[in-house]
Protein backbone atom coordinates (compact mmCIF):
# COMPACT_ATOMS: atom_id res chain seq x y z
CA UNK A 1 0.00 0.00 0.00
CA UNK A 2 1.25 3.49 -0.82
CA UNK A 3 0.18 7.09 -0.47
CA UNK A 4 0.90 9.88 -2.91
CA UNK A 5 -0.55 13.41 -2.99
CA UNK A 6 -3.21 12.41 -0.49
CA UNK A 7 -4.40 9.33 -2.35
CA UNK A 8 -3.93 5.92 -0.73
CA UNK A 9 -3.82 2.91 -3.04
CA UNK A 10 -2.59 -0.64 -3.08
CA UNK A 11 -0.75 -2.46 -5.81
CA UNK A 12 -0.29 -6.19 -6.22
CA UNK A 13 0.99 -8.82 -8.62
CA UNK A 14 0.70 -12.59 -8.91
CA UNK A 15 4.27 -12.71 -10.20
CA UNK A 16 6.84 -12.71 -7.39
CA UNK A 17 9.60 -11.21 -9.52
CA UNK A 18 7.33 -8.44 -10.74
CA UNK A 19 6.04 -7.86 -7.23
CA UNK A 20 9.55 -7.16 -5.97
CA UNK A 21 9.99 -4.58 -8.71
CA UNK A 22 6.73 -2.72 -8.04
CA UNK A 23 8.30 0.15 -6.06
CA UNK A 24 10.00 1.26 -9.26
CA UNK A 25 6.57 1.89 -10.80
CA UNK A 26 5.12 3.94 -7.96
CA UNK A 27 4.37 7.65 -8.48
CA UNK A 28 6.89 10.33 -7.54
CA UNK A 29 6.83 11.24 -3.87
CA UNK A 30 5.16 8.00 -2.78
CA UNK A 31 5.46 6.72 0.75
CA UNK A 32 4.07 3.68 2.53
CA UNK A 33 0.33 4.07 2.95
CA UNK A 34 -1.85 3.57 5.97
CA UNK A 35 -5.58 3.21 6.41
CA UNK A 36 -8.01 2.27 3.70
CA UNK A 37 -6.96 2.17 0.07
CA UNK A 38 -9.28 3.94 -2.35
CA UNK A 39 -7.84 2.23 -5.41
CA UNK A 40 -6.29 -1.16 -6.14
CA UNK A 41 -3.98 -1.85 -9.05
CA UNK A 42 -2.93 -5.32 -10.14
CA UNK A 43 -0.35 -6.49 -12.64
CA UNK A 44 -0.83 -10.11 -13.65
CA UNK A 45 1.70 -12.57 -14.96
CA UNK A 46 -0.11 -12.60 -18.33
CA UNK A 47 0.54 -8.85 -18.71
CA UNK A 48 -2.93 -7.62 -17.76
CA UNK A 49 -3.18 -4.45 -15.68
CA UNK A 50 -6.35 -3.78 -13.73
CA UNK A 51 -7.65 -0.91 -11.65
CA UNK A 52 -10.31 -1.81 -9.11
CA UNK A 53 -10.87 -5.06 -11.00
CA UNK A 54 -11.34 -3.50 -14.42
CA UNK A 55 -8.88 -4.22 -17.22
CA UNK A 56 -7.20 -0.95 -18.12
CA UNK A 57 -4.14 -2.06 -20.10
CA UNK A 58 -2.28 -5.07 -21.42
CA UNK A 59 1.43 -5.38 -22.01
CA UNK A 60 3.87 -7.95 -23.29
CA UNK A 61 4.90 -10.14 -20.39
CA UNK A 62 8.45 -9.73 -19.26
CA UNK A 63 9.01 -6.65 -21.37
CA UNK A 64 10.68 -3.57 -19.98
CA UNK A 65 7.50 -1.72 -20.77
CA UNK A 66 5.38 -3.68 -18.29
CA UNK A 67 6.31 -1.76 -15.18
CA UNK A 68 6.42 1.48 -17.15
CA UNK A 69 2.84 0.90 -18.26
CA UNK A 70 1.71 0.08 -14.74
CA UNK A 71 3.43 3.25 -13.55
CA UNK A 72 1.67 5.32 -16.20
CA UNK A 73 -1.70 3.83 -15.24
CA UNK A 74 -1.16 4.62 -11.57
CA UNK A 75 0.10 8.13 -12.24
CA UNK A 76 -2.86 8.88 -14.48
CA UNK A 77 -5.30 7.61 -11.85
CA UNK A 78 -3.54 9.70 -9.23
CA UNK A 79 -3.70 12.75 -11.50
CA UNK A 80 -7.44 12.40 -11.85
CA UNK A 81 -8.30 11.59 -8.28
CA UNK A 82 -5.70 13.04 -5.88
CA UNK A 83 -7.71 15.04 -3.35
CA UNK A 84 -6.83 18.70 -2.94
CA UNK A 85 -4.61 18.77 -6.01
CA UNK A 86 -5.12 19.62 -9.66
CA UNK A 87 -2.84 18.00 -12.22
CA UNK A 88 -2.00 19.85 -15.42
CA UNK A 89 -0.11 18.03 -18.15
CA UNK A 90 3.05 20.13 -18.28
CA UNK A 91 6.77 20.19 -17.78
CA UNK A 92 8.00 22.31 -14.88
CA UNK A 93 11.40 23.63 -13.89
CA UNK A 94 12.39 26.16 -11.25
CA UNK A 95 14.57 29.16 -11.99
CA UNK A 96 15.03 32.56 -10.41
CA UNK A 97 12.80 31.66 -7.48
CA UNK A 98 9.74 30.80 -9.57
CA UNK A 99 8.54 28.00 -11.79
CA UNK A 100 8.56 27.87 -15.57
CA UNK A 101 5.50 25.91 -16.66
CA UNK A 102 5.37 24.37 -20.13
CA UNK A 103 1.96 22.83 -20.78
CA UNK A 104 1.65 20.52 -23.73
CA UNK A 105 0.40 17.29 -25.12
CA UNK A 106 2.55 14.22 -25.47
CA UNK A 107 5.07 14.49 -28.30
CA UNK A 108 4.99 18.31 -28.31
CA UNK A 109 8.65 18.46 -27.29
CA UNK A 110 7.93 19.39 -23.71
CA UNK A 111 10.35 16.94 -22.10
CA UNK A 112 13.15 17.89 -24.49
CA UNK A 113 12.76 21.52 -23.43
CA UNK A 114 12.64 20.58 -19.76
CA UNK A 115 15.86 18.60 -20.16
CA UNK A 116 17.52 21.54 -21.94
CA UNK A 117 16.45 23.89 -19.15
CA UNK A 118 17.88 21.54 -16.54
CA UNK A 119 21.14 21.29 -18.51
CA UNK A 120 21.23 25.09 -18.55
CA UNK A 121 20.97 25.22 -14.75
CA UNK A 122 17.29 25.15 -13.81
CA UNK A 123 16.02 22.83 -11.09
CA UNK A 124 13.93 19.89 -12.20
CA UNK A 125 10.36 19.76 -10.94
CA UNK A 126 8.42 17.58 -13.38
CA UNK A 127 8.29 16.46 -16.98
CA UNK A 128 4.75 15.15 -16.78
CA UNK A 129 2.42 17.15 -14.54
CA UNK A 130 2.29 20.53 -12.86
CA UNK A 131 0.70 19.48 -9.57
CA UNK A 132 -1.15 22.49 -8.16
CA UNK A 133 -2.05 22.53 -4.49
CA UNK A 134 -4.89 24.41 -2.79
CA UNK A 135 -2.68 27.50 -2.38
CA UNK A 136 -1.90 27.65 -6.08
CA UNK A 137 1.67 26.44 -5.63
CA UNK A 138 3.28 23.80 -7.81
CA UNK A 139 4.52 20.79 -5.87
CA UNK A 140 7.58 18.85 -7.00
CA UNK A 141 6.72 15.80 -9.05
CA UNK A 142 10.15 14.53 -10.12
CA UNK A 143 9.31 11.51 -12.22
CA UNK A 144 12.61 10.21 -13.57
CA UNK A 145 13.40 12.30 -16.61
CA UNK A 146 13.38 10.37 -19.83
CA UNK A 147 13.80 12.00 -23.22
CA UNK A 148 12.39 10.45 -26.38
CA UNK A 149 14.92 10.21 -29.19
CA UNK A 150 14.61 8.57 -32.58
CA UNK A 151 15.21 4.84 -32.33
CA UNK A 152 14.97 4.69 -28.55
CA UNK A 153 11.39 3.46 -28.44
CA UNK A 154 8.50 4.87 -26.49
CA UNK A 155 10.31 4.73 -23.17
CA UNK A 156 13.00 7.15 -24.26
CA UNK A 157 16.46 7.60 -22.86
CA UNK A 158 16.76 7.93 -19.07
CA UNK A 159 18.34 11.28 -18.25
CA UNK A 160 19.42 11.34 -14.61
CA UNK A 161 19.33 14.68 -12.81
CA UNK A 162 21.74 15.32 -9.89
CA UNK A 163 19.89 15.31 -6.58
CA UNK A 164 20.79 18.93 -5.72
CA UNK A 165 19.14 19.99 -8.95
CA UNK A 166 15.79 18.40 -8.11
CA UNK A 167 13.18 20.76 -6.66
CA UNK A 168 11.98 19.90 -3.18
CA UNK A 169 9.66 22.75 -2.25
CA UNK A 170 6.33 24.00 -3.61
CA UNK A 171 6.80 27.05 -5.79
CA UNK A 172 4.74 29.75 -7.48
CA UNK A 173 4.57 29.97 -11.27
CA UNK A 174 6.50 32.88 -12.75
CA UNK A 175 6.40 32.05 -16.44
CA UNK A 176 3.98 30.03 -18.56
CA UNK A 177 5.37 29.00 -21.92
CA UNK A 178 3.00 27.86 -24.66
CA UNK A 179 5.15 26.27 -27.31
CA UNK A 180 5.73 23.26 -29.46
CA UNK A 181 8.65 22.11 -31.54
CA UNK A 182 8.76 22.94 -35.23
CA UNK A 183 12.02 22.34 -37.07
CA UNK A 184 13.55 25.50 -38.47
CA UNK A 185 11.37 27.75 -36.29
CA UNK A 186 12.99 30.81 -34.79
CA UNK A 187 12.11 31.53 -31.18
CA UNK A 188 10.20 34.80 -31.28
CA UNK A 189 7.52 34.57 -28.62
CA UNK A 190 4.68 37.00 -28.11
CA UNK A 191 3.17 37.98 -24.80
CA UNK A 192 -0.30 36.81 -23.94
CA UNK A 193 -2.65 37.86 -21.18
CA UNK A 194 -2.86 35.88 -17.97
CA UNK A 195 -6.40 34.96 -18.93
CA UNK A 196 -5.12 33.45 -22.14
CA UNK A 197 -2.49 31.60 -20.15
CA UNK A 198 -5.04 30.23 -17.71
CA UNK A 199 -7.31 29.17 -20.55
CA UNK A 200 -4.45 27.36 -22.26
CA UNK A 201 -3.62 25.55 -19.02
CA UNK A 202 -7.24 24.43 -18.72
CA UNK A 203 -6.83 22.62 -22.02
CA UNK A 204 -4.29 20.34 -20.35
CA UNK A 205 -6.01 19.95 -16.97
CA UNK A 206 -7.11 16.43 -16.17
CA UNK A 207 -9.92 17.47 -13.84
CA UNK A 208 -11.34 20.07 -16.24
CA UNK A 209 -14.56 18.09 -16.59
CA UNK A 210 -14.70 16.03 -13.42
CA UNK A 211 -13.88 18.90 -11.02
CA UNK A 212 -14.33 22.08 -13.09
CA UNK A 213 -14.48 24.42 -10.09
CA UNK A 214 -11.16 23.20 -8.74
CA UNK A 215 -9.67 23.19 -12.22
CA UNK A 216 -10.68 26.81 -12.90
CA UNK A 217 -9.35 27.93 -9.53
CA UNK A 218 -6.04 26.16 -10.05
CA UNK A 219 -5.32 27.51 -13.53
CA UNK A 220 -6.27 31.05 -12.48
CA UNK A 221 -4.18 30.89 -9.31
CA UNK A 222 -1.26 29.57 -11.31
CA UNK A 223 -1.52 32.37 -13.86
CA UNK A 224 -2.22 35.23 -11.49
CA UNK A 225 1.43 36.25 -10.98
CA UNK A 226 2.93 34.70 -14.08
CA UNK A 227 4.04 36.10 -17.40
CA UNK A 228 2.64 34.21 -20.37
CA UNK A 229 4.45 33.81 -23.66
CA UNK A 230 3.67 31.82 -26.76
CA UNK A 231 5.57 30.84 -29.87
CA UNK A 232 6.92 28.01 -31.94
CA UNK A 233 10.37 26.89 -31.04
CA UNK A 234 13.25 25.28 -32.86
CA UNK A 235 16.16 23.68 -31.03
CA UNK A 236 15.61 23.48 -27.29
CA UNK A 237 19.00 24.67 -26.02
CA UNK A 238 18.73 28.21 -27.42
CA UNK A 239 15.18 28.54 -26.12
CA UNK A 240 16.23 27.28 -22.70
CA UNK A 241 18.83 30.05 -22.39
CA UNK A 242 16.26 32.64 -23.48
CA UNK A 243 13.73 31.40 -20.92
CA UNK A 244 16.26 31.43 -18.11
CA UNK A 245 17.27 34.95 -19.08
CA UNK A 246 13.59 35.88 -18.94
CA UNK A 247 13.37 34.67 -15.35
CA UNK A 248 16.56 36.45 -14.41
CA UNK A 249 18.64 33.30 -14.19
CA UNK A 250 21.13 33.15 -17.03
CA UNK A 251 21.78 29.80 -18.58
CA UNK A 252 25.02 28.16 -17.58
CA UNK A 253 24.93 25.04 -19.73
CA UNK A 254 25.70 22.82 -16.78
CA UNK A 255 26.16 19.25 -17.73
CA UNK A 256 24.44 16.27 -16.28
CA UNK A 257 24.88 12.76 -17.44
Amino acid at each position, binding site marked *: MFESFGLTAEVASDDREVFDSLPAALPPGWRPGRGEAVARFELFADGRITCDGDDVAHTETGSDATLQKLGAVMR*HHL*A*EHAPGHVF*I*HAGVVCAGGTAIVIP*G*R*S*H*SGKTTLVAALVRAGASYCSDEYAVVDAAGLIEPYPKPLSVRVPGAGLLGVPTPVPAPQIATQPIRAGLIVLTSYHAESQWSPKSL*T*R*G*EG*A*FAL*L*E*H*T*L*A*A*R*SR*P*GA*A*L*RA*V*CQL*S*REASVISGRRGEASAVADALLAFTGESGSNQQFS
Partner: protein
Amino acid sequence: MLSKKTLRPLARTDGLLSEEVDGELLVYDEDNVVACRLNGSAALVWRSCDGKRSVADLVAVLTEEVGELADEDLVMVALDTLADHDLIESGYQRRDAEASRFSRRRFIRRVGIAGAASIAVPVVAGMVPPVAAAATSGTYPYYIFLTARHQHS
Protein backbone atom coordinates in the same frame (compact mmCIF):
# COMPACT_ATOMS: atom_id res chain seq x y z
CA MET B 1 -36.62 42.00 -32.42
CA LEU B 2 -36.59 44.49 -29.58
CA SER B 3 -35.29 47.97 -30.31
CA LYS B 4 -31.96 48.85 -28.74
CA LYS B 5 -33.70 51.30 -26.43
CA THR B 6 -35.79 48.58 -24.86
CA LEU B 7 -33.09 45.93 -24.59
CA ARG B 8 -32.30 45.00 -20.98
CA PRO B 9 -29.94 42.03 -21.24
CA LEU B 10 -29.60 39.74 -18.24
CA ALA B 11 -26.44 37.62 -17.88
CA ARG B 12 -26.98 33.92 -17.41
CA THR B 13 -25.53 32.63 -14.15
CA ASP B 14 -27.26 29.29 -13.57
CA GLY B 15 -25.06 26.31 -14.30
CA LEU B 16 -21.96 28.46 -14.67
CA LEU B 17 -18.72 28.52 -12.68
CA SER B 18 -16.37 31.43 -13.14
CA GLU B 19 -12.95 32.64 -12.01
CA GLU B 20 -11.37 36.01 -12.63
CA VAL B 21 -7.78 36.61 -13.58
CA ASP B 22 -6.52 40.12 -14.34
CA GLY B 23 -9.95 41.42 -15.36
CA GLU B 24 -10.62 38.49 -17.66
CA LEU B 25 -13.00 35.68 -16.83
CA LEU B 26 -12.83 31.96 -17.29
CA VAL B 27 -16.32 30.50 -17.31
CA TYR B 28 -17.26 26.83 -17.18
CA ASP B 29 -20.71 25.97 -18.46
CA GLU B 30 -21.78 22.80 -16.65
CA ASP B 31 -24.92 22.39 -18.75
CA ASN B 32 -23.19 22.52 -22.13
CA VAL B 33 -19.78 21.20 -20.96
CA VAL B 34 -17.99 24.15 -22.50
CA ALA B 35 -15.36 26.50 -21.11
CA CYS B 36 -15.05 30.11 -22.22
CA ARG B 37 -12.56 32.91 -21.80
CA LEU B 38 -13.99 36.42 -21.74
CA ASN B 39 -11.46 39.16 -22.32
CA GLY B 40 -11.71 42.34 -20.26
CA SER B 41 -14.38 44.16 -22.25
CA ALA B 42 -16.54 41.07 -22.77
CA ALA B 43 -16.26 40.27 -19.05
CA LEU B 44 -17.24 43.80 -18.10
CA VAL B 45 -20.30 43.80 -20.35
CA TRP B 46 -21.34 40.35 -19.12
CA ARG B 47 -21.01 41.33 -15.48
CA SER B 48 -23.00 44.48 -16.13
CA CYS B 49 -25.93 42.74 -17.78
CA ASP B 50 -28.23 42.88 -14.79
CA GLY B 51 -31.54 42.96 -16.65
CA LYS B 52 -31.94 46.66 -15.84
CA ARG B 53 -29.22 48.37 -17.83
CA SER B 54 -29.95 49.39 -21.39
CA VAL B 55 -27.42 49.34 -24.23
CA ALA B 56 -26.74 53.03 -23.55
CA ASP B 57 -26.09 52.20 -19.90
CA LEU B 58 -23.70 49.46 -20.94
CA VAL B 59 -21.88 51.93 -23.21
CA ALA B 60 -21.48 54.19 -20.18
CA VAL B 61 -20.09 51.32 -18.09
CA LEU B 62 -17.65 50.38 -20.83
CA THR B 63 -16.63 54.01 -21.29
CA GLU B 64 -15.36 54.08 -17.72
CA GLU B 65 -13.04 51.22 -18.61
CA VAL B 66 -11.90 51.93 -22.18
CA GLY B 67 -12.73 55.61 -22.59
CA GLU B 68 -13.93 56.98 -25.90
CA LEU B 69 -13.38 53.70 -27.66
CA ALA B 70 -16.66 52.53 -26.19
CA ASP B 71 -19.73 52.94 -28.33
CA GLU B 72 -22.96 51.16 -29.15
CA ASP B 73 -21.28 48.99 -31.78
CA LEU B 74 -18.81 47.68 -29.25
CA VAL B 75 -21.58 46.78 -26.80
CA MET B 76 -23.67 45.11 -29.49
CA VAL B 77 -20.68 43.05 -30.64
CA ALA B 78 -20.10 42.01 -27.03
CA LEU B 79 -23.74 41.04 -26.57
CA ASP B 80 -23.76 39.03 -29.81
CA THR B 81 -20.61 37.19 -28.78
CA LEU B 82 -21.93 36.50 -25.30
CA ALA B 83 -25.23 35.27 -26.72
CA ASP B 84 -23.31 32.99 -29.11
CA HIS B 85 -21.86 31.25 -26.09
CA ASP B 86 -25.17 30.99 -24.24
CA LEU B 87 -24.09 33.52 -21.61
CA ILE B 88 -27.19 35.73 -21.87
CA GLU B 89 -30.25 34.60 -19.97
CA SER B 90 -32.84 37.01 -21.34
CA GLY B 91 -33.44 40.51 -22.62
CA TYR B 92 -31.34 40.08 -25.73
CA GLN B 93 -31.65 38.04 -28.87
CA ARG B 94 -28.59 37.57 -31.00
CA ARG B 95 -28.74 39.51 -34.23
CA ASP B 96 -28.03 37.86 -37.53
CA ALA B 97 -24.38 37.39 -38.40
CA GLU B 98 -24.31 40.18 -40.99
CA ALA B 99 -25.59 42.77 -38.51
CA SER B 100 -22.95 41.69 -36.02
CA ARG B 101 -20.18 41.85 -38.62
CA PHE B 102 -21.38 45.29 -39.68
CA SER B 103 -21.10 46.57 -36.09
CA ARG B 104 -17.63 45.13 -35.79
CA ARG B 105 -16.48 46.65 -39.08
CA ARG B 106 -17.95 50.02 -38.20
CA PHE B 107 -16.21 49.97 -34.82
CA ILE B 108 -12.88 49.07 -36.39
CA ARG B 109 -13.28 51.76 -39.05
CA ARG B 110 -13.86 54.31 -36.33
CA VAL B 111 -11.02 53.45 -33.99
CA GLY B 112 -8.59 51.32 -35.98
CA ILE B 113 -7.40 47.96 -34.78
CA ALA B 114 -4.01 48.71 -33.26
CA GLY B 115 -3.06 49.14 -29.63
CA ALA B 116 -5.83 49.92 -27.16
CA ALA B 117 -8.54 49.45 -29.76
CA SER B 118 -7.61 45.83 -30.31
CA ILE B 119 -7.75 45.22 -26.57
CA ALA B 120 -11.20 46.77 -26.39
CA VAL B 121 -12.74 44.42 -28.95
CA PRO B 122 -14.82 41.90 -26.99
CA VAL B 123 -13.58 38.37 -27.35
CA VAL B 124 -15.17 35.20 -26.04
CA ALA B 125 -13.16 32.10 -26.86
CA GLY B 126 -14.75 28.72 -26.35
CA MET B 127 -13.30 25.30 -25.74
CA VAL B 128 -14.69 21.87 -25.12
CA PRO B 129 -12.70 20.82 -22.03
CA PRO B 130 -10.72 17.64 -22.43
CA VAL B 131 -11.64 14.33 -20.95
CA ALA B 132 -8.85 13.26 -18.61
CA ALA B 133 -7.13 10.90 -21.04
CA ALA B 134 -7.08 13.55 -23.76
CA ALA B 135 -5.48 16.11 -21.46
CA THR B 136 -2.53 13.77 -21.24
CA SER B 137 -2.25 12.24 -24.68
CA GLY B 138 -3.71 14.94 -26.86
CA THR B 139 -5.38 12.29 -28.98
CA TYR B 140 -8.89 13.70 -28.70
CA PRO B 141 -9.88 16.65 -30.86
CA TYR B 142 -11.21 18.66 -27.97
CA TYR B 143 -9.83 22.08 -28.63
CA ILE B 144 -12.39 23.81 -30.72
CA PHE B 145 -12.95 27.49 -31.00
CA LEU B 146 -16.63 27.93 -31.17
CA THR B 147 -18.40 30.37 -33.36
CA ALA B 148 -21.83 29.36 -32.23
CA ARG B 149 -23.37 27.80 -29.19
CA HIS B 150 -22.04 24.30 -28.80
CA GLN B 151 -24.52 21.64 -27.77
CA HIS B 152 -23.58 18.32 -26.28
CA SER B 153 -25.76 15.32 -26.39
